[in-house]
């Protein structure tokens, strides 16, 4: 697959994702209880100052009496012009708000991913040294346990252990150097299981291959074999799975951020649903979904760079 075709395919996917997410958001608005003109009027002028005149003004201004398909067209064209409007709660421009939350999420996700790759990669590589050995079995148990624990339970356990009983770390909050530790560790532990499994299988497979045997025959030391031959080839098997992990990561972000009050997109999304803050809901859902497309694109490019040989079957997203 060439780079151009790959990017074109991902771009199409991004457009599709945007349309589906905005359609869902639009449905949310349509289905909201109560007259939406009154709700927006309340958001703008305060609940005490709403009257029929103000609501009618807003209805005319926003074209709320137009048929649904026309409004959906309007909605989409606003989207294309990146006009997300203002938050109904804070009255700040949505782009500004979402930018702030996106930064929080990227920070958290980056820290978690790094930690997960370190933990999972190390565990997987160690387990692969002696398949069936003690380390391998312990890793097996670890993977199974992590898989069975949903992120919110894991987070609660960590809070109980590290914050309540040991008092080492703050349980909730945003900013400061210690508040990121618990949410990042929660996410990282959840991710590390699958990374460990894939890494282990990849390393075992690569170590059994002909080129590694040849490298040994050449007389390379074990460390050089690992660094030069095993690492890169195993990476071509592991990296595609990081794209799958992105979906898991984003799902985890939604939960973990709400749990620890970390100010990111997931937190914003849950609150937007809660407060019926439609513009923020739409923008943060969209950004979260596009984030996955972006990560998948990066993964594709990375795989192409690690293993430039053309391949016939496409990489599973």
């Amino acid at each position, binding site marked *: 697959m060439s780079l151009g075709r790959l990017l074109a395919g991902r771009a199409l996917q991004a457009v599709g994702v945007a349309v589906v*997410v905005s359609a869902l958001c639009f449905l949310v608005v349509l289905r909201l209880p109560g007259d939406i003109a009154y709700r927006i009027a309340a958001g703008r002028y305060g609940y005490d100052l709403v009257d029929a005149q103000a609501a009618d003004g807003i209805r005319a201004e926003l074209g709320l009496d137009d048929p649904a398909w026309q409004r959906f067209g309007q909605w989409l064209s606003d989207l294309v012009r990146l006009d997300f409007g203002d938050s109904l709660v804070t009255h700040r421009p949505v782009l500004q708000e979402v930018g702030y939350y996106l930064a929080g999420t990227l920070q958290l996700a980056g820290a978690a991913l790094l930690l997960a790759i370190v933990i999972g990669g190390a565990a997987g590589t160690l387990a692969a040294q002696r*398949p069936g050995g003690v380390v391998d079995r312990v890793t097996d148990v670890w993977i*199974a346990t992590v898989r069975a624990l949903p992120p919110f339970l894991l987070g609660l356990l960590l809070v109980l252990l590290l914050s309540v009983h040991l008092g080492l770390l703050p349980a909730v909050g945003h900013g400061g150097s210690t508040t990121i530790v618990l949410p990042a560790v929660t996410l990282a532990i959840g991710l590390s299981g699958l990374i460990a499994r894939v890494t282990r299988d990849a390393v075992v497979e690569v170590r059994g291959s002909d080129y590694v045997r040849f490298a040994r025959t050449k007389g390379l030391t074990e460390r050089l074999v690992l660094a030069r031959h095993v690492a890169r080839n195993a990476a071509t098997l592991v990296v595609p799975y990081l794209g799958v992990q992105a979906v898991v990561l984003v799902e985890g972000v939604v*939960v973990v951020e709400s749990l620890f009050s970390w100010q990111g997109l997931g937190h914003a999304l849950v609150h937007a*649903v809660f407060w019926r803050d439609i513009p923020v809901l739409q923008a943060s859902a969209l950004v979260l979904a596009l984030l996955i497309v972006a990560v998948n694109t990066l993964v594709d490019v990375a795989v192409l760079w690690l293993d430039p040989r053309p391949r016939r079957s496409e990489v599973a997203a």
Partner: protein
Amino acid sequence: MTAILDLAPTTQRRGRRTAGLARRLCAGVLVALVLFALVGPFVLGDPAAQSLDRFLEAPSLAEPLGRDDYGRSVVSRLAHATRLSLVLAALCVATALVIGTASGVLAAWRGGWVDAVLRSVSEVFVALPALLIVLLVAALSDGDLWTLYVGLAVAQWVEYFRVVRARAALVLGSPAVEVAGLLRLGPWHVVRRHLWPELRPALTTLASLGMVTSILAMSTLGFVKVGLEPPRAELGLMITESFPYYDVAPWMSLAPVAVLFLLTVCFLGLRRTEDA
């Protein structure tokens, strides 16, 4: 969703006998939980009946899990919550399985533009986190069961579609199916004789993973207070509601956690040996 990943071939390391034993254990615990969920609500009292004078009553013989902060019977609420999780998850998995399998077989069989359209639709859904879909659909109306159901089913069909499409394409292109076509044995024969036996193991694996995904998604949404609303008994909600009393009444928060954990482990355990 991680099901696609879990289908990746893993090397067989565990002994066949221990695997069989573990699987039977999982099945046993699962049957017990299902019985608890099905029979419990009929035997135990009303999960919403409050009696405030019995605030945080400790477990006793009559009330094995004590009472919560409203004096409601925890064991009764637990039975209702487990039933809700199991029934809703089973419905979601069944729906997603039927839609995903049908569209997957259709795409593989017809090919051409049908395949192209279905594949691009699935591409879009792959890039959407399941929880996001469920969250948005759940926002449609407050605490309604059907919105959760629709959200979960919509989020999950794509896994079945992708796996079925890939495997069905292989089967349909095989010499055996070609011969069946030459013998004019008809499409029904191909489905029953060639397609179904090939797809069944993958589908059971996906279904048991789908149960886990649905149950966890439901409780997660309950936990962040976006899913079902109180006073409905739901595992995630029960965990949130009981957490403030963790110090004085640990049994209250531990019970739903234990049920959730057992459900997850058992469904995963069933799958683990499925591909052994």
